[in-house]
């Protein structure tokens, strides 16, 4: 294939912005490592914005009948918080890691479709900016102030239930920005999924059979297939919502013959697989990090990989557990209850395999490992409360309360975000050539662990005593004010922990210890090149005869491939 030199090609891995063509060589880059870093920076920016929104929410709820935010403003903020964290932070941040590390881990030069890769990233940025432009562009003052829209951002929640999201009930154009922004992001993500699947299936270095790829790559592969099948229902529903809103169709408007419940089927057919999209690559990270810092291979590789495939398949059969209170009848609820419970089996398999990997090892408690171990514990809490939602009668009481808010934050923050921080401490040296400071890292970890539990554990109890989610304020019932105040204090500890992390990144970039090629003595191919890797990734890819090619190089007398291939 002929090469078209559209882009100023850089021969240094991380061109500075002030160097010749510096900015252009980032913006126009089709290099998976630069795009991966841009993914991480853009999603970090959105994470900070979403975090500030979370602090606004917690300030408003710090005491009963607070008037810090007007109701509509609060509703916009919590809608944007959820939408941002899910669509602009967790999913693309994991894709960013995949974009950077999958080609390195399989010994490839780049992704299968480098230009498509750049398109995916820029669609994310564009979709995110479109969504946020709603704050200034979405306003549409309503005469008299009643029933009203006094600001521009969407305010129907991150799952935007119809008919609330339809024009009669959401008259500002916030919901249009929401649907268009998510469409842009969704198309980019779909392209990214295709790119990752093809890269993993076609560009592996000779010798790396699918039974030898690192587990992070396995999880990204399964994730790619889930994205491929889960995003179309969402994109279809978004288009239908836009047609309803702009052209007065009535897909989801019951008063004119549409169905409010149909939106939920479409949305959750995407929305529950989405939950696994947000956790699988995180599981992959944990499955890389725990073995390296325990100095043992992953326990039960086939079972960790196989259970992820099982989850990928099951993820499409569980979505209606979000709809147990819709009134669709006991047989319907029972079927989805059974499927949802099944998910606990492959999830449990992974947790036990991680513990078995630690068992008998020589564990080095680096910051990365601390985050990984905390992940196991916090994710287990979120997993157990998840099983309670598969049990229909418990769901009938606890859904849409603060108990569910606690549940999914234990899964997505205690789970995914803790895994992402484990991954950042693990891979930052590879990406930048500098180690993050362990001293700052320990502060970051403990503040975050304490802040997280302070914020979210008490929300389980708030839900049990009857506090619904998504309320801009609440009556002064016994205990509610105190528990909400504890949660708010926790949120500020959490925010401070994030500042410590950012400080750590800046200080370490400035004068961190040089990392060397393989600071953790790890075994997968990304550590077989310089830090940061050259533009072409590898001078020479080591032979791959087992799952741990670098272990084999270091132990020529006793390589893995003689014991276990």
């Amino acid at each position, binding site marked *: 294939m002929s090469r078209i030199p559209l882009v100023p090609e850089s021969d240094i891995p991380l061109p500075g912005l002030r160097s010749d063509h510096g900015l252009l060589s980032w913006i126009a880059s089709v290099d998976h490592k630069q795009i991966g870093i841009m993914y991480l920076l853009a999603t970090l920016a959105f994470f900070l914005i979403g975090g500030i929104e979370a602090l606004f929410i917690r300030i408003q709820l710090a005491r009963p009948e607070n008037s810090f935010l*007007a*109701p509509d403003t609060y*509703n916009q903020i919590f809608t944007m918080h959820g939408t941002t964290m899910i669509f602009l932070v967790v999913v693309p941040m994991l894709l960013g890691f995949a974009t950077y590390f999958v080609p390195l881990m399989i010994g490839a030069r780049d992704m299968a479709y480098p230009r498509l890769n750049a398109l995916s990233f820029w669609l994310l940025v564009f979709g995110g900016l479109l969504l946020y432009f709603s704050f200034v562009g979405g306003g549409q003052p309503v005469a008299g*102030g*009643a029933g009203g829209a006094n600001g521009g951002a969407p*305010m*129907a929640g991150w799952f935007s*239930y119809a*008919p*609330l999201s339809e024009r009669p*009930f959401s008259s500002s154009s916030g919901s249009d920005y929401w649907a268009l922004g998510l469409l842009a992001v969704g198309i980019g993500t779909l392209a990214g999924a295709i790119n990752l699947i093809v890269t993993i299936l076609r560009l592996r270095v000779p010798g790396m059979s699918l039974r030898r790829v690192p587990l992070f790559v396995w999880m990204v592969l399964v994730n790619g297939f889930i994205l491929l099948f889960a995003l179309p229902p969402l994109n279809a529903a978004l288009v239908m919502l836009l047609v309803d809103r702009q052209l007065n169709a009535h897909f989801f408007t*019951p008063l004119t013959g549409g*169905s*409010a*419940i149909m939106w939920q089927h479409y949305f959750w057919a995407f929305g529950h697989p989405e939950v696994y999209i947000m956790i699988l690559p995180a599981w992959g990270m944990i499955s890389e990090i725990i073995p390296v810092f*325990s*100095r*043992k291979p992953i*326990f039960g590789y*086939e079972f960790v990989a196989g259970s992820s495939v099982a989850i990928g398949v099951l993820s499409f059969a569980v979505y209606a557990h979000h709809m147990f*209170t*819709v*009134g669709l009848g006991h047989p319907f*609820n*029972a079927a989805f209850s*059974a499927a949802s419970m099944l998910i*606990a*089996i492959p999830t*449990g398999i992974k*947790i036990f*395999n991680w*513990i*078995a990997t*630690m*068992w008998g*090892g*020589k*564990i080095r*408690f680096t910051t990365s490992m601390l985050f990984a171990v905390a992940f196991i514990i916090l994710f*287990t809490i979120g997993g*157990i409360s998840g*099983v*309670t939602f598969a*049990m*229909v*009668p*418990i769901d*009938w*009481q606890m859904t*849409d*309360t603060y108990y569910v808010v606690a549940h999914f934050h234990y899964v997505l923050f205690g789970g995914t975000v803790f895994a992402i921080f484990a991954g950042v401490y693990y891979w930052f040296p590879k990406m930048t050539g500098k180690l993050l400071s362990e001293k700052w890292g320990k502060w970051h970890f403990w503040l975050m662990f304490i802040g997280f539990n302070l914020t979210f554990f008490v929300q389980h109890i708030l839900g*049990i*005593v*009857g506090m*619904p989610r998504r*309320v801009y304020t*609440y009556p002064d*019932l016994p*205990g509610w004010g105190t528990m909400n105040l504890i949660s708010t204090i926790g949120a500020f500890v959490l925010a401070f922990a994030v500042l410590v992390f950012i400080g750590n990144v800046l200080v370490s970039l400035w004068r961190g210890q040089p990392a060397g090629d393989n600071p953790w003595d790890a075994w997968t191919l990304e550590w077989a090149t310089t830090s940061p890797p050259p533009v072409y990734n590898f001078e020479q890819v080591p032979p791959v005869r087992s799952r741990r090619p670098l272990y084999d190089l270091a132990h020529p007398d006793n390589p893995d491939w003689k*014991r276990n291939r």
Partner: protein
Amino acid sequence: MDSLLNAGSPQAQAMQSMFFWTLVLGGLIFLLVTGLVLAASIRYRQRANDDEPRQIFGNLKLEIGWTIAPALLLVFLFGWTLQTMRTADPAVAATNQDPDLVIIAHQWWWEVHYPKSGVVTANEIHIPAGQKILTRFESADVIHNFWVPEIARKMDVVPGHPNYLWLQADQPGLYQGACSEFCGAQHAWMRIRVIAETPDEFAAWQQAQLQTPAAPTGDTAVQGQQLFQQKTCMNCHTIAGSGATEQIAPDLTHFASRATLGAGVMDNTPANLNTWLTNPQAIKPGSHMPDLKLSADEVNALTAYLETLQ
């Protein structure tokens, strides 16, 4: 506290005991996992002079063990779920769909009908204790959710899709709840009060609600009644016997007999009513009752009139 932990009906009791024992079971599993993680962390922590640990790649028997054990536990949980679903939400037979109570959710209040007696009220639901009340849920606009944790499961209130529930409270008393599906600006102030009474008290309440309120006496109240007709109040509200019959907003026929106003945003006292009428948008921004820019005298008169509607 108004929580599922104080179950006040056989249905809520079933959900409560299931939740309690599931939390105990979940707690044990959590202790097992955390115990193993901590044990591994302490016992296998790296010491200075350690060699490489033994490289173990897996163990088929263990894998089978931790696949089968949770599977068996889940079979049990599923059976328990099926059984509890029947107790927690007894089936409503197709032939039995002549409801005792119809609850229509609006942005942001509850309309309450008793079709067998003709009583209409709002936000405060009186039921006779100890009886199963067949309740039908409808929505006038968006999706809401009826949740009174001490006595019943959550039930979505979906436009175009009526749902049914047996509402039951064993003991007389007040059971509080709230809308728990996000429904717009004032989702927070869409609270529910279920007042369970002895059958005699309930019958007396129902009788009182069916009476047409006596015409107001006293100058201010009479003036208030005239204002109610002249201002746009009667475009939305009903007061039996006054000629106001619109059902867009809460029925005010026996307004003064209710304990709260604005679906729980305030206690129903004359002072609060005065504040509310002065500008509802200051109390419940976004609610569908507009600021009518009434003068202080007009507000006082209307307050006096509405307070007569016992």
